[in-house]
């Protein structure tokens, strides 16, 4: 557990860099987190991030399949938005825990 200052805000993250308090998240924090992975966030990215947060708030398990069926973006598009980690990097940027599903 560590504190990190990002976009002028102090946020708590775990050892892998995932935020531990989703309420500390906002779009500016997301933009900065995305930059760490070399991603410049677009409106499409934010649509995905909001979707991930909504699903997580409901207590459901996240899978890329769910995102693919969300109507926001297909799976190929999701890989395009978050290269090298469609669910992992997006979850990190969305300020939610690391996905616990294998799919």
């Amino acid at each position, binding site marked *: 557990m560590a504190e990190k200052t990002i976009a002028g805000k102090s946020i708590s993250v775990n050892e892998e860099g995932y935020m531990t308090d989703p309420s500390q998240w906002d779009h500016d924090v997301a933009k900065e987190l995305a930059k760490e992975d070399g991603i410049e966030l677009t409106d499409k990215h934010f649509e995905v991030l909001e979707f991930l947060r909504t699903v997580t708030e409901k207590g459901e398990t996240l899978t890329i399949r769910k995102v693919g069926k969300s109507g926001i973006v297909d799976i190929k598009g999701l890989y395009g938005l978050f290269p090298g*980690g469609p669910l992992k990097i997006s979850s990190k940027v969305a300020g939610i825990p690391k996905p616990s599903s294998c799919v």
Partner: protein
Amino acid sequence: MSAKEESPLKKVCIICAKGTIEDVYATLVMANGAVMEGIEAKVFFTFFGLDAITKKQMKRLKTATVGNPAMRAPGGLPFPTVLGMVPFVEMGVSAMMKSQMYKLDIPPVEEFMEMITAGGGELYACKLAMDMFKLEKKDLYEGVIDVLTIGDFYGKCGGDNTQIIFT
């Protein structure tokens, strides 16, 4: 990622040689898991594993109900092999396996392969086994890139931090 991980896995080459639900899904879960982690994945289907990419068979994979000591009835009750020989039992067990996986958001075979190829994973068929089973490229799922000899497949498995996995 821990700081100790200095040399992460870059590529997995998975050989799928069996055609039961669980063998095929083991392959697909590993391949999909790889591309989701940004690891390159190449899958080679051979022998009975070809069922997984044969249009006619890929929707009809089954679990073997005979000779599978780890298989138990719901509630952990024993499942004697002779029961597995009863007509339709295999079908019922296979349907149950599929429904249990579906609940975990594990898709049907074809959709799973779409997910893998969407992430850049590559699917290949074994030439020798294709000849043996009298199959042609047109019999295969469209996502299969090519029919290769094992030598050609090995040619795609080079590079540092590459692993070959046999299921």
